[in-house]
């Protein structure tokens, strides 16, 4: 599949709580908005302002449940497509995860078994979603506290095959790689060596916290140094089209977010 995605640069997740901050932070070249919160007929003024400045606004979905056993819910895909149109977005994204089953909602992105069976279901769901979307779809690796038994593939192998069979793009979350290394003993370098980085759309960076012996993906704490080092490992292998900082809670002072954006830029755009 031949497709060209734009260079995005360095960005931050737009959230209503930090709308003014995002508008005035220096060096923000693109933003992401939670797709389920976008209503095309009433976009927040802050997003309109960013769009007028020519800043790409990418809808990031959390509810398609593409790794779920059920066929994709067409109305959710239609909503994501409408969000992409309303925002003029060059691509959209969701996760390699499931969020519901048997009529129950987990309220969170849960990992899926890394088996051939699951991969077949995921591929069918992704192809169905892509058929209804006006722009390319990027899929993100998730953080997990639990490991499914009887994995037949590593996470890297699983994603590589997903890309090969669907032509989807990758949204690599280096914090989630760090979480899974800490909690599950996964090898993030094997992941980076195995996934097709030429299909990388952009990268997520975030922070978390230790809690009762596990490391949690909170998006409420500063980006730890090992996550910036993983971003550096990725940068050694490929120049990422974009890198985005996610912060969802316990918002710090503007200066702290600006410093984190600068740290990210220092890793991906080292001074010539």
């Amino acid at each position, binding site marked *: 599949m031949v497709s060209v995605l734009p260079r995005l640069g360095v960005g931050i997740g737009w959230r209503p709580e930090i709308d003014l901050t995002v508008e005035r932070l220096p060096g923000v070249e693109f933003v992401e908005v939670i797709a389920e919160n976008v209503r095309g007929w009433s976009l927040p003024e802050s997003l309109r302002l960013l769009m007028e400045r020519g800043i790409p606004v990418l809808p990031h979905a959390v509810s398609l449940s593409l790794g*779920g*056993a*059920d*066929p994709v819910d067409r109305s959710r895909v239609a909503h994501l497509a409408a969000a992409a149109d309303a925002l003029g977005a060059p691509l959209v994204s969701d996760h390699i995860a*499931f969020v*519901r*089953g*048997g*009529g*129950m*909602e*987990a*309220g*969170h992105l*849960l990992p*899926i*078994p890394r088996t051939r*069976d*699951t991969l*077949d*279901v995921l*591929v*069918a769901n992704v*192809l*169905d979603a892509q*058929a209804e979307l006006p722009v390319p779809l990027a899929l993100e690796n998730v953080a997990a*506290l*639990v*490991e*499914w*038994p*009887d994995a037949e593939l590593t996470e890297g192998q699983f994603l590589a095959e997903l890309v090969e069979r669907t032509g989807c793009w990758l949204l690599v979350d280096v914090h989630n790689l760090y979480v899974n290394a800490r909690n599950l003993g996964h090898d993030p370098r094997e992941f980076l060596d195995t996934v097709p980085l030429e299909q990388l759309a952009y990268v997520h960076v975030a922070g978390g916290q230790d809690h*009762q012996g*596990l490391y*949690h993906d909170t998006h409420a704490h500063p980006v730890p140094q090992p996550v910036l080092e993983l971003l550096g490992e990725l940068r050694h292998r490929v120049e990422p089209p974009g890198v985005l900082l996610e912060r969802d809670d316990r918002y710090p002072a503007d200066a702290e977010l600006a410093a984190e954006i600068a740290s990210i830029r220092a890793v991906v755009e080292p001074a010539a």
Partner: protein
Amino acid sequence: MSGPPEGARERLAAAQVALLRALLENAEAPPGFAPERLRAQAEALRRKRRRVVANLRPELLDQLGDRFATLFDSYARQHPRRTGTTARDDADAFARWLAHRDDVPRSPSRWWHRFRS
């Protein structure tokens, strides 16, 4: 369009529902999962759900104080969020569950509070 092989969706559905029931309804751990990890994940899911409801209904947090978390967790285990319901539905259902238990007074209602202040 060719779908997944015969039975793949059904096998995955059975596995995912068993995990969801363990995490959301405190059902028995499916084979092969580390029970302490399931407990940690279940607790993280409830914490997230509780935070959302506390933000939507701060008056319940005020009224219940330290008992909010325990009561919410007990409600949550009995009532996993159903597909098609919103976070607001969840918050309203928790309030009704509390009222049914008489853990918060049925009145004063919120508008009455506002009248007095």
